[in-house]
């Protein structure tokens, strides 16, 4: 610790603290442009100059560390004169077209000049101009370099945080321009983090261009509705239309960053296709109706069936409160145990996943995970499924020594940060993990029951089926052995292929019990409230807070299966497009059509709503209050910004109205009362604090541990480990590719295809293959190919990904016109396809 004097006030700070931070700690204001806590220090703008007593020259406080005994002045007359001078030079060539500039009103340069600037500049020369007109850098980014202050934050955030590095600085001095290569269109992640960090109006949102001034906007603190990273953001509306989403420095796990889905994907809210009135099927066609009629029809039909013959599926994008009410409606009012929250994977693996991923042990902060010596990411395409988690991992792993291991069949952006990259065959996470365990066990670890169980498994078999060399497996095992603390980040592949969960559970036990390591496991989920959905008990196998329930109900798969056998009469589907998300499209349609009564609640007319008897128009996240639980177990509130369009209602109100038609007292009546009930019902949520808000203040730490759910002791019965069969091995002859599916960087489920901005980034499905395969077939990114499976074929463009496993093809799961689920069929895990070049 060192003690320094700042403006005469003594303060003790840690060694190597920057003068800037020490001054801010002491409550002294120091203006900056190029400084940003998470980015490499640069010291180029000179806005932060301070005077150190005894030194003649002023020093940039953002790169100068404090020394013991320093006496620093942040507002002496020399310093204020220097600031004014810096600003005068910045304005010398500045465009100063504030009236036209989209940044005006929230521009850091405006604020600074207003506060510290010279009233008049002495420069009379003609201003230098980079260009006359703003130029488009991507479908979401537009640029005007004449307003640049050359802070290079955009370049640094793109390289250091996002990890794509497509921006650079061209030229020198005031002719330095931060832009793309040859000012061409950016082929990047399109997340707009360059826009967010730019202090002036250089990088700007194209969808928000000339829409409003900052003072026109009404805003609400919310959480991104796409993946479960749970990025905090502020959404803003003008005249009832949400026009912008932005993140704030120092708020939420994401701080100032968001991915393309979060920053640009909110525009589905204002989509003109939104359903605005309830529809009831009359004489075979859906006709507009009233809420009274719709609810009456639902009540009349549902009361005719036995509870156990009714099933419910609710979207993991609903709030905790709504999901809680949903399962309460089924369990307590309709008397049905059949509730589930996903159509994409079978619910039978979920318990094992929850146990293996330690979700019942309470929330785990991603920052704590990144504090470990070794971080092992498996079963997740994290760079695309959870982009901001990828940023966090990249940023932290570049700042400290750690062993980062990534195992995935497909190459990803984060690979470049990893010490070891493992390319295994699709759906062989289990084999890979077992191989690692067996290698760890080589020198006779204390043998646990679990290890006994896999003793019979031959290391060579595991190695062969995972397609990874023994040498790499040894390297991973050594890495784990040499680490004191280990974090495992596990993705949704384990839910698609639950055979692997066993291995995960075992590795956890081996690391903890046999090797005595400090181990944290973090699930990486791809729907904003998937964890909340489970913890609210929207699952056929357990109740609220993972509580044991009597008798297991049916999950989505079992419900559809039952429906085709006439074993299920009715379904109530809230926000899930089963027909296009269930892996086996034909079967899903057949099952849904076989139902006697189908109620679907959605924002849009989907394939599933088209089959419904009653369609209920529901709401977007911006239209309701409530809370989401992110993948870490952080409970974060969302706030209402506007009202739903037309006669659409909030999901919670719809569920409540249906419940009340059966039982007058069904409730509670509003989101906060429901949350109180959740606190009483679920031990994990009892002490969770919801007070964190999006206000920017110095006490707002990124890692707000108060919001993490606590451990649950309710898992009394213990979730059984996965005991399903091993994946069926198949002949590969005609179909050389294994088809994988999941989320694309710009898309996530049906929601994102309703966003104009995101659809503009990627409109139709593409098939992604490795460079090896591409070379063999002689195709390039953009070539047209035919993808043929056993049940379906489709033509699409190809994207080549360097470094992916040979023989792996990937198609994102959300495109309505290329439904990837047609390639899958029940009873076979995974799908195989052939890819042939067209033209």
């Amino acid at each position: 610790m060192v003690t320094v004097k700042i403006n005469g006030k003594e303060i003790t700070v840690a060694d190597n603290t920057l003068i800037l931070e020490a001054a801010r700690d002491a409550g002294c204001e120091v203006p900056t442009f190029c400084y940003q806590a998470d980015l490499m220090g640069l010291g180029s703008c000179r806005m932060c100059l301070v005077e150190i007593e005894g030194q003649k020259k002023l020093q940039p406080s953002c790169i100068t560390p404090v020394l013991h005994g320093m006496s620093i002045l942040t507002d002496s007359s020399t310093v204020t004169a220097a600031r004014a001078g810096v600003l005068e030079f910045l304005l010398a060539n500045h465009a100063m077209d504030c009236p036209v500039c989209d940044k005006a009103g929230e521009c850091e340069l405006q604020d600074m000049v207003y506060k510290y600037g010279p009233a008049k500049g002495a420069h009379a020369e003609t201003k230098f101009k980079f260009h006359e007109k703003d130029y488009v850098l991507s479908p979401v980014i537009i640029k005007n370099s004449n307003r640049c202050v050359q802070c290079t934050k955009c370049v640094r955030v793109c390289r250091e945080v996002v990890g794509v590095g497509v921006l650079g600085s061209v030229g020198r001095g005031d002719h330095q321009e931060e832009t793309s290569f040859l000012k061409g269109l950016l082929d990047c992640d399109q997340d707009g983090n360059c826009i967010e960090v730019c202090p002036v109006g250089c990088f700007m949102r194209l969808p928000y261009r000339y829409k409003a001034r900052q003072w026109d906007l009404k805003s609400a603190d919310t959480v991104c509705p796409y993946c479960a990273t749970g990025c905090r953001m502020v959404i803003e509306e003008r005249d009832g239309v949400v026009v912008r989403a932005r993140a704030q420095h120092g708020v939420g796990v994401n701080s100032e960053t968001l991915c393309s889905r979060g920053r640009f994907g909110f525009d589905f809210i204002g989509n003109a296709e939104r359903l605005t009135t309830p529809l009831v099927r009359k004489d075979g066609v859906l006709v507009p109706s009233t809420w009274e009629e719709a609810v009456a029809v639902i009540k009349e039909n549902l009361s005719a069936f036995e509870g156990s013959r009714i099933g419910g599926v609710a979207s993991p994008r609903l709030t905790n409160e709504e999901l809680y009410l949903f399962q309460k409606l089924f369990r307590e009012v309709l008397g049905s145990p059949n509730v589930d929250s996903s159509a994409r994977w079978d619910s039978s693996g979920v318990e094992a996943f929850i146990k293996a991923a330690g979700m019942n042990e309470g929330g785990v902060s991603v920052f704590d995970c990144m504090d470990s010596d070794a971080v092992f990411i498996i079963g997740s395409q994290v760079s695309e499924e959870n982009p901001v988690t990828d940023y966090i991992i990249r940023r932290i792993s570049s700042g400290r020594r750690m062993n980062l291991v990534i195992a995935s069949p497909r190459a990803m952006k984060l690979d470049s940060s990893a010490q070891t990259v493992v390319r295994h065959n699709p759906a062989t996470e289990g084999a890979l993990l077992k191989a690692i365990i067996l290698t760890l066990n080589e020198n006779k670890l204390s043998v646990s029951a679990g290890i006994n169980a896999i003793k019979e498994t031959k290391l060579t078999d595991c190695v062969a089926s995972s397609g990874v060399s023994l040498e790499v497996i040894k390297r991973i095992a050594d890495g784990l052995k040499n680490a004191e603390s280990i974090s495992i980040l596990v993705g949704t592949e384990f839910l698609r292929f639950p055979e692997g969960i066993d291995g995960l559970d075992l590795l956890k036990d081996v690391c903890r019990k046999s090797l005595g390591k400090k181990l944290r496991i973090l699930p990486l989920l791809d729907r904003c409230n998937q964890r909340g959905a489970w913890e609210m008990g929207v699952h056929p196998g357990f109740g609220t807070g993972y509580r044991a329930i009597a008798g297991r109900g049916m999950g989505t798969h079992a419900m559809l299966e039952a429906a085709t056998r006439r074993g299920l009469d009715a379904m109530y589907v809230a926000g899930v497009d089963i027909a296009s998300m269930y892996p086996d499209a034909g079967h899903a349609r057949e099952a849904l059509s076989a139902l006697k009564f189908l109620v679907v609640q959605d924002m849009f007319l989907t394939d599933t709503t088209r089959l419904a008897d009653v369609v209920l128009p529901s709401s977007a996240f911006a239209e309701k209050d409530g809370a989401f639980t992110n993948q870490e177990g952080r409970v974060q509130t969302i706030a209402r910004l506007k009202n739903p369009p037309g006669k659409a209602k909030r999901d919670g109100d719809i569920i409540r109205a249906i419940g009340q038609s059966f039982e007058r007292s069904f409730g509670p009546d509003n989101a906060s009362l429901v949350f109180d009930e959740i606190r009483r019902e679920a031990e994990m949520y009892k002490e969770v604090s919801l007070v964190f808000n999006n206000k920017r203040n110095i006490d707002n730490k990124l890692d707000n541990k108060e919001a993490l759910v606590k451990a649950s002791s309710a898992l009394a019965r213990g979730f059984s480990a996965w005991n399903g069969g091993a994946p069926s091995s198949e002949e590969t002859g005609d179909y050389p590719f294994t088809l994988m599916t999941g989320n694309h960087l710009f898309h996530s489920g049906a929601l994102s295809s309703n966003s104009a901005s995101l659809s503009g980034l990627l409109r139709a499905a593409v098939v992604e293959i490795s460079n090896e395969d591409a070379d063999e077939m002689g195709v390039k990114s953009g070539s047209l190919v035919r993808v043929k499976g056993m049940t379906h074929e489709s033509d699409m463009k190809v994207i080549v990904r360097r470094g992916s496993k040979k023989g792996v093809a990937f198609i994102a799961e959300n495109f309505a016109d290329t439904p990837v689920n047609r390639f899958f069929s029940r009873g076979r895990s995974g799908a195989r396809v052939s890819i042939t070049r067209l033209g």
Partner: protein
Amino acid sequence: MSGKFDIVGLVRKVIFSDFARGLAITLKYNVSRSITLKYPDDEKWVPYVRFRGAHTLNRDPSGKELCVACELCAKACPTKCITVIPEEDDTGRGIADRVAKVWKVDLVRCMFCGFCEDACPTRAIRLGREYELACTDISSTVRFKDALLKPQPIHEGIAGGVVAKARFEKTEAGIRVVADTGIIKKRAL
């Protein structure tokens, strides 16, 4: 009241002196120049340039809209009666590629303070010299861009402070009183 007898007052009453003084004023005005106007039949007042009447949106000499939809006028307005919604249009309609999609002012709420005029960086918005704002239909007091961009009858070049010959003109909106700036009388107030 004192008990003293007011002899002077009595004399004044007897000779009608107050009455005569009042009559003198009347007679004086009878022969002096009149300050009332024969409005609307014959004359109409043309105010000075500094007058703050109904809004008008200006164009630059080449006909481009001066307003860049910066919304500063709306922000400056104490009664919040201006709404500006920008849009992008680089066809040369305006002086920049940012132009107003909507520019509207609610004259009923306006207090003609002129802050909007002061805030405008391009001198697009001016409070003009139109002051006949009485109407029977309240909706006509909300004025939109298209109407505001039409030049007002008294253009900026006319100094004002004069009385002009009034004419009645029949328009679709009703009968209007038009000042014929060709026939003016200077008139000191």
